[in-house]
């Protein structure tokens, strides 16, 4: 099934409903479909190959996603925040291609071999040009929908392949067609080159929910836009939510229209989600866990799970606030031990997943095994009621004397210390234990001693989880989607020692 069909269905069912954009200048489903078609025909005539998108979030992003689908071209959004040399190298890898580039970014990418550059404003004009609107659409049968360069922390980014059938399957199995009411609007603040941005476009079109785009995230702009646009739904990565909450609090802003807030793309510190639920008691919170290679969400911790967990005095139930909920009913999920056997309940292993939305493919190479399973490279475990707890990337999990230690768990505890602004926990090689726990801390409001911090962890967790190596720094390395780059610190501290 093709993703362009999702828009076609929406445009036929609710042609006049607003699909994307601000209340004052929104674009209807019928108009979005017409633009996508005209824009696709125009792009298709400019050159062969992939359609690349280099730009901030705007109505042009979903238009380009559907325009590419209309003419059967893969859509490849690139990370415009990369350094020029890296961005140009990635762009070169998409050739032959036609690239839609924000007007003020054109100078950064011109002159790459095999890439035809058009400005975003030229694309937008082409989408409303009557000549393109009247043009016959070529018949196409190409099934790569999206190429996403995964934000690797080491080496060259890999191009993840998502085919139309994976994305369409994800949408129709998780979203009820046109179930949104006309007032619903979702604020998209993840960048267009993030899987959540692609999924947000497709699911919102199918649900009938207007998408509003934040060109670039800042907590102030997010709050302003959410209030002005009467936003009802939004997805944030945990670091974004952590920055939004103090602004809401300082302004006394209650966001009365906001109904649902979802988060994902990284571990949510318990202190942040608890604060958010206190501050926004009427909002439904959902935690979505997924990967680029799985067409977004594969497990969800829903609003009822959140409320049950936070209200419970049973620590077993309460800790589910830190889980990613249960796997989607449309797919299978297993935890496997290193020897391939299924992990018992409560035992950590690698998360495997199988289902129609699972792409598990990089350009030139599928990594789905013969039985259809995809290894996520995430470590996790399941409790007795099927709630999934993700501990982080397998490479990040610390194995100390045979015990698996989740860096996120130790970080969460340290973040609640009054003199800790930020912290990264990771493993360093150790002769006696295999690995030992190390922490790099950004201090605030004074200088905590390492003895203080060690005591803080020991009191709340246990001594085996207490960092043995400490370092203080002014800031920590993050990638542009807010993921902490533990590996960078691990390499630096390993090198220092050697």
């Amino acid at each position: 099934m093709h993703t362009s069909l999702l828009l076609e269905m929406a445009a036929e069912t609710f042609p006049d409903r607003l699909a994307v954009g601000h209340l004052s200048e929104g674009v209807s489903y019928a108009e979005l479909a017409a633009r996508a078609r005209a824009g696709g025909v125009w792009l298709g005539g400019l050159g062969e190959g992939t359609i690349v998108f280099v730009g901030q979030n705007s109505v042009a992003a979903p238009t380009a996603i559907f325009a590419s689908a209309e003419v059967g071209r893969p859509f490849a959004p690139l990370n415009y925040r990369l350094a020029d040399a890296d961005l140009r190298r990635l762009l070169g890898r998409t050739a032959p291609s036609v690239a839609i580039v924000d007007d003020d970014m054109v100078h950064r990418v011109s002159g790459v071999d095999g890439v035809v550059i058009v400005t975003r404003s030229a694309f937008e004009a082409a989408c409303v040009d009557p000549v393109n609107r009247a043009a016959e659409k070529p018949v196409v049968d190409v099934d790569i929908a999206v190429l996403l360069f995964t934000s690797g922390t080491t080496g060259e980014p890999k191009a993840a392949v998502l085919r139309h059938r994976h994305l369409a399957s994800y949408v129709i199995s998780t979203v009820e067609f046109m179930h949104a009411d006309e007032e619903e609007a979702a604020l998209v603040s993840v960048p267009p080159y993030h899987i959540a941005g692609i999924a947000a476009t497709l699911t919102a079109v199918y649900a009938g929910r207007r998408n509003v785009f934040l060109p670039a995230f800042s907590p102030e702009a997010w709050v302003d836009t959410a209030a002005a646009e009467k936003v009802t739904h939004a997805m944030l990565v945990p670091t974004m939510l952590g920055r939004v909450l103090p602004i809401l609090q300082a302004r006394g802003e209650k966001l009365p229209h906001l109904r649902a807030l979802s988060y994902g793309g990284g571990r949510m510190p318990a202190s942040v989600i608890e604060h958010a639920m206190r501050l926004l008691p009427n909002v439904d919170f959902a935690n979505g866990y997924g990967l680029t290679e799985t067409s977004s969400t594969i497990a969800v911790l829903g609003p009822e799970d959140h409320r049950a967990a936070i209200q419970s005095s049973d620590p077993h139930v309460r800790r589910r606030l830190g889980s990613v909920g249960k796997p989607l009913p449309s797919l299978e999920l297993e935890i496997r031990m290193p020897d391939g056997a299924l992990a018992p309940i409560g035992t950590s292993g690698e998360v495997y997943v199988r289902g129609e939305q699972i792409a598990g493919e990089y350009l030139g190479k599928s990594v789905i095994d013969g039985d259809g399973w995809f290894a996520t490279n995430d470590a996790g475990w399941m409790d007795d009621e099927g709630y999934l707890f993700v501990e982080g990337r397998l490479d990040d999990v610390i194995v100390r004397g045979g015990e698996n230690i989740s860096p996120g768990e130790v970080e969460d505890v340290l973040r609640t210390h009054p003199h800790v602004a930020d912290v990264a926990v990771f493993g360093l090689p150790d002769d006696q234990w295999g690995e030992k726990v190390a922490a790099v801390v950004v201090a605030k409001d004074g200088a905590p001693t390492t003895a203080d911090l060690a005591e803080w962890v020991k009191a709340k967790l246990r001594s085996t989880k207490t960092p043995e190596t400490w370092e203080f720094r002014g800031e920590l390395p993050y990638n542009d989607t807010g993921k902490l780059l533990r590996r960078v610190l691990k390499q630096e501290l390993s090198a220092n020692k050697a």
Partner: protein
Amino acid sequence: MEMKPGSRWASAVCDAEVVVVRPPKSGGDLACGGHAVVAHGGAKPDVARLDTAQDPAPLVGKRYVDADSGLEVLCVKAGKGALSLDGRPLALKEAKALPASD
């Protein structure tokens, strides 16, 4: 008829259109309103159009399944004729609502 995943079919007797989400394990003939469906974009046979809606009439965005063969189709255009496979009526697939997570 070969019902490949993603293939699109149109009713001969009404406006209904469906896309195959999951093909039947062993072939079969998909019908709408008692008449075999035709490939989308193809010519429709000369049969009488349905005047009144049957029960259940296909609704856009709903999925319909045949438990015996595993066939699942998504209705992409509403119509009046009920869907069937080899004479067995397709059942509406009840979807569990999931919270928005993107």
